[in-house]
């Protein structure tokens, strides 16, 4: 019996490593106004994997889901342009959005996955702005579903999924039963480009809107950000001529 629908859960993040990020003058966070936001690169890989699975006819429908303010619809449209069938935008804005963390998002995704009877939930392994690496794992725990995280290869085998995971020691292959949660790692695939004709066609695909309250999720955060600072400027190094000098310097500053 082939799985019916796959959920791809997307994250809207600050554009990858190269935009100029600075800390807000009041140290409560980073300046996000006017900074280009786009789909998290690991989520792009997740979308690509889901679309590939659909193309190979393992799954029938791919739904792209994201939580956040109106900007997030652009990200969902990109996912639709890459081949997802429909989208769900869970509206979270203002103070709720600033306080939103992996736990709240995981609760939303879990509630949606149950509601829509998804067979697979695929996410990026972590968001590149906060590097939390928690949402996928929390979603699986809330659903009490098996998880295949840091996937670098995914194969569907009947009712089970074979996942090759990237771990510290090398690669680990596991077989988990569906429904399951997977998180995509870098080498899983190379995402396709969202071409302009597909972006235009994606405008006709449906994006449903809902609020966390509709899913019975409370957005209260149990984490409070106290302060955000820039990393300290790197100090210049010191060159020494001999080993004795090195030992003397290390003794002098208390390292040995």
């Amino acid at each position, binding site marked *: 019996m082939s799985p019916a629908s796959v959920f791809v859960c997307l994250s809207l993040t600050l*554009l990858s490593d*190269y*935009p*100029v990020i*600075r800390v807000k*003058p009041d140290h409560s966070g980073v300046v996000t106004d*006017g*900074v*280009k936001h*786009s789909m998290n690169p690991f989520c792009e890989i997740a979308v690509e994997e889901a679309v590939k699975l659909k193309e190979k006819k393992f799954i029938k429908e791919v739904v792209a889901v994201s939580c956040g303010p109106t900007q997030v619809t652009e990200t969902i449209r990109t996912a639709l342009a890459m081949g997802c069938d429909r989208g769900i935008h869970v509206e979270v804005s203002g103070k709720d959005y600033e306080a939103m963390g992996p736990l709240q998002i995981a609760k939303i995704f879990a509630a949606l996955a149950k509601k829509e009877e998804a067979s697979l939930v695929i996410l990026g392994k972590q968001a590149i702005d906060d590097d939390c690496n928690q949402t996928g794992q929390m979603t699986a725990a809330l659903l009490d579903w098996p998880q295949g995280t840091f996937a670098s290869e995914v194969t569907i085998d009947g009712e089970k999924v074979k996942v090759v995971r990237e771990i510290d020691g090398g690669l680990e292959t596991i077989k988990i039963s569906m429904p399951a949660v997977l998180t995509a790692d870098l080498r899983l695939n*190379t*995402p*396709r*480009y969202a*071409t*302009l*004709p597909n*972006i*235009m066609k994606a405008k006709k695909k449906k994006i449903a809107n809902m609020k966390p309250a509709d899913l019975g999720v409370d957005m209260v955060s149990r984490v409070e950000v106290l302060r955000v600072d820039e990393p300290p400027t790197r100090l210049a190094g010191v060159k020494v001529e001999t080993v004795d000098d090195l030992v003397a310097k290390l003794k002098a500053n208390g390292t040995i």
Partner: protein
Amino acid sequence: CLSLSESTTHRIICTAHYTWGRNCSSAVMPRITSHYTIFPRDKDPRWEGVEMERFADEADVVIVGGGPAGLSAAIRLKQLAKEQEKELRVCLVEKASQIGAHTLSGACLEPSALNELFPDWKERGAPLNTPVTEDLFSILTEKYRIPVPMLPGLPMNNHGNYIVRLGHFVHWLGEQAEELGVEIYPGYAAAEVLFHEDGSVKGIATNDVGIAKDGSPKDVFERGMELHAKVTLFGEGCHGHLAKQLYRQFNLRENCEPQTYAIGLKELWVIDEKKWRPGRVEHSVGWPLNRNTYGGSFLYHLNEGEPLVALGFVVGLDYTNPYLSPFREFQRWKHHPFVAKTLEGGDRIAYGARALNEGGYQCLPKVTFPGGMLIGCSPGFMNVPKIKGTHTAMKSGMLAAEAIFPKVTAEDPASETAGLHIPEYEDNLKKSWIWKELYAVRNIRPSFHNYFGLYGGMIYTGVFYWILRGKEPWTLKHAGLDSAQLKPAKECTPIEYPKPDGKLSFDLLSSVALSGTNHEGDQPPHLTLKDDSIPVANNLAIYDGPEQRFCPAGVYEYVPLETGEGMRLQINAQNCVHCKTCDIKDPSQNINWVVPEGSGGPAYNGL
């Protein structure tokens, strides 16, 4: 769709060079250029069997470029459509990842065009938050400052204008356009002009994606898309790459002088609150440039909540000394006591650069041709002594829209060519305030070409502009092509620039990092060379490689060859901030800037 005839001969030469060059040069010089505009794919065996068919779509009007001109044209078209209850499909493509990300300007906006486009701009929330309150002009010497009174009537007087972050203003224009129903597609660059059989412009094709650095197709290769239109507007900004092609194609420059340019470098600083004077506009000329090198500085105090100043330096690209580095002139200008006192204790948060037009009236080309027209800084409506081009760019877009609208909505356009030719746009321009303004200031910039340089120019401005308002019966000429102005290196003295101190002045690479620029690494360099051997043979040998100095992003480097003696040119295409200076100033005119994969380039935030 074929790009027309000039490329056929070019293609044959290129193919010959490709095979000959490969055999000849692989032993000595590694190949630099791999772009398909130099090495066509239909002769390239790696592209055999690759699907090259493009998806095509039709709109009424297609606009290339999401800057002030393009967006004003789009908005005006939709406003007219709403007024007259007609349907009009307007599509706009922009190479930046979001509208405003490639926009850079001082800027002191004169709201004349904006008042015409949106009389209610304040209610709509246009980000014009800083009216000009103080206007200072100085002549700088190495240690001192000579103030020059900003009398009303002088072109630089800014009474009634607003200091804006143009990127934010353009972003706001984009939002207004989308509300009116314009289809805006950021992240897609117009890479090719398409032509009907009768030679008129049919539209544009967006960039292909998924080509590897060596020019071969990757697995993710996708062809760009064709957007066809009754008329296509080209608003690529200063020195657009498609406009360059159109000038040749339609001979648009036969009755005007070659365009002359400057490079503008800019930084944003958060300064000490005690030094902040919101609404203050400062301009200077003189040090560190000598009297024969055109240029000057600006420093504007914004009023948007935090003590932010926008400052920058402009150098005319008709400079003659190949050892001159506009970037390093900018950095050392900041050490002048009058400037340093504002910046001390502050933090630099952004950097960027862009070429700008200086030609004015004498350099205006023909702006209409069958199937299309040129708007904004692309043909070049900048008022140089005022150093403002945004208001004229917007107005040109609006005039284009007003000329186009009756034609594209007419039942029978009665056009001789498949793409509509609408010369009424040019007539409208000539009757408008743009023309009067540019005519009045036409002699100011060329007046700098005299023995006294800067001082001669200032005297000329004082006499003929301030008193006579540009009514003198003669029109002075510019010096000719900027790229032809460099003297050979051996005739010039190298300039000793001070080392950056890391507090006020900085090195090039940390500056480029603040522009947020990046490109997909695995793509052919978009700074294409018509001939890979010319940089070392000509630019380095005669001019000591000026591109190492005029590029504000460190794209060009002459590095020693790995094997034995000699140097080679290394192109760091990922650093490019799309300023177009290299295409303008290259003495060999060998560099042809083409558009990279869409979304690449700087990520300016309100610059």
